[in-house]
């Protein structure tokens, strides 16, 4: 490695056949931040993680991270999982029943080379709210508790790449809200990149820097999160909860009407009063179904957020009744989903100036 400025890369060319299912991925991913792997069940998300971790000896091809090669079929090289320094949290907690919670947490910690240890037992137990559980046996834990122990145990093994296979599915909303921020700051703080499998789009939008779409064992597309949500050609745009993701900053609070103004790319959005300090950066999603269009600036409307936009593209939606429209406003992209009937009546075309009326804004982080 020449220096910190070098973009780390995860190169994979993997092929795994299991019965009728074939996983065939061939791509280079940025090895920074959080990469979310998203796709329908049966798309091969778990298989992909297992191949990266070295748990599928039948996988063919090559896999390397910068100058560390984990697999290279041409050289008959296959580094076994315990020597890869990759951590994985499975869908099931997989705790060791003959050990206490504390011993489970220390299992990986003891085996991690001292120079590579980056977290202490205290830090992890505090962040994951595990103190009261340390003396318990795994059988005494609830599903959510066990999953938190599994996450803590993996972090303490100090991996150089963390694979998470829907690790929060057993957790309730409150705990998820407590643990997601902890996960989100790991890449930046520890230089620990994360590959995160999820089928919950909210979680993906909240956490991911980079999004990889897996369909039928193949990578259909991948790219920076915001870019992916702007594209009309991906299956993502066809979802009911599709919509542009953007970063905004808290500009001002209006205590009289109990509102908060958010700024992005020179534009402003007004939302219900938020508890964040002025200057806080937030990630928002504007769902396509919540955006309607008018040709004239609307007067006498109850909708607060109206942005002048230019239509940049149109695409048919999966439902024949609807059309997807890509809009640009001050360099920021928005998506709108309107009926095909309205689209034809207004004769909407790329290049036209319209006004986007935004009915609601979803705050994701």
């Amino acid at each position, binding site marked *: 490695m020449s220096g910190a400025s070098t973009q780390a890369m995860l190169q994979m060319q993997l092929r795994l056949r299991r019965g009728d299912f074939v996983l065939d991925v061939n791509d280079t991913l940025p090895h920074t931040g959080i990469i979310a792997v998203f796709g329908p069940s049966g798309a091969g998300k778990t298989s992909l993680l297992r191949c990266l*971790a*070295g*748990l599928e000896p039948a996988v063919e091809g090559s896999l390397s991270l910068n100058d560390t090669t984990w697999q290279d079929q041409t050289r008959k090289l296959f580094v*076994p*999982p*315990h*020597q890869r*320094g*990759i*951590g*994985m949290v*499975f869908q*099931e907690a*997989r705790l*060791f*029943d*003959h*050990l206490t919670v504390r011993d489970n947490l220390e*299992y*990986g910690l003891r*085996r*991690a080379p001292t120079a590579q240890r980056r977290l202490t037992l205290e830090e992890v137990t505090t962040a994951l709210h595990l103190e009261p559980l340390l003396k318990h*046996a795994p*059988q005494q834990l609830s599903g959510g508790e066990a999953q938190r122990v*599994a996450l803590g*145990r*993996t972090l303490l*093994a100090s*991996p150089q790449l963390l694979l998470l296979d829907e690790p929060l599915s057993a957790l309730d909303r409150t705990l998820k809200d407590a643990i997601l921020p902890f996960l989100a700051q790991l890449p930046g703080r520890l230089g620990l990149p994360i590959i995160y499998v999820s089928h919950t789009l909210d979680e993906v939008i909240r956490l991911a820097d980079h999004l990889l779409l897996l369909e039928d064992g193949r990578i259909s597309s991948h790219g920076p999160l915001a870019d992916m949500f702007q594209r009309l050609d991906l299956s993502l745009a066809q979802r009911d909860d599709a919509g542009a993701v953007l970063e905004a900053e808290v500009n001002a609070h209006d205590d009289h009407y109990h509102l908060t103004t958010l700024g992005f790319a020179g534009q402003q959005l007004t939302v219900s009063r938020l508890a964040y300090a002025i200057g806080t950066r937030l990630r928002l999603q504007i769902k396509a179904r919540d955006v309607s269009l008018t040709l004239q600036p609307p007067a006498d409307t109850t909708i607060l957020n109206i942005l002048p936009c230019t239509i940049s593209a149109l695409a048919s939606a999966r439902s024949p009744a609807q059309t997807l429209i890509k809009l640009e406003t001050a360099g920021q992209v928005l998506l709108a989903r309107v009926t095909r009937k309205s689209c034809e009546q207004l004769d909407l075309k790329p290049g036209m100036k319209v006004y986007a009326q935004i009915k609601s804004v979803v705050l994701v982080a």
Partner: protein
Amino acid sequence: MDTTSLWSPVLLTLQLATYTTVILLLIATPLAWWLARSTGRTKPAVEAVVALPLVLPPTVLGFYLLIALGPHGLIGAPWLAVTGDTLSFSFTGLVIGSVLYSMPFVVQPLQTAFAATGEQLLEAAALLRASPWDRFVSIVLPSAKRGFIVAATLGFAHTVGEFGVILMIGGNIPGKTQVLSIAIYDRVETLQYGEAHAMAAGLLLFSFAALLLVYGLNRRARAGTVQ
């Protein structure tokens, strides 16, 4: 009642069962591990061979052992050449016979225990940087603790209760091959019912205690308590 003639078979029996159990645990652990993990074609054949003593009359096993251990036998001849001793009608011969005869009682509980330690836990341990040997020692062995206790108890108790094979290959030599079960047979033949009673009652109590331990452990395993 002559107490020395009573205690000699008891000590010999305990000695035989102890040697047999220790040797069996050493042989059965890798064998049971392989049987628990293997999916190969040879697995059913090996399982069948291990289980043979469960269904064969002890006289059949004893007959083949007698031939194999004899001075011209497959095992007996090389043994004689190396040590200058014969195996048949010796204590060492009894240990070899007991190891084969009690094998299924040790292998099967271990195999069940090893199979219960799922692949999932071993994968988790591997990704926590544990090498294959480390995983065996830190995950498989402790998880199979109950299996080891059951295997050792059954192997020991079954060896103590062995009769037919020993009679075939060891005969009835007091102080050398006359274990408890044979001694009882011997006392009954010579109408020494007092001694026969004492030994039979002792064996009955011991066997009950051993089985109570095994079933007690099984009940706790089902109830799901730890340690």
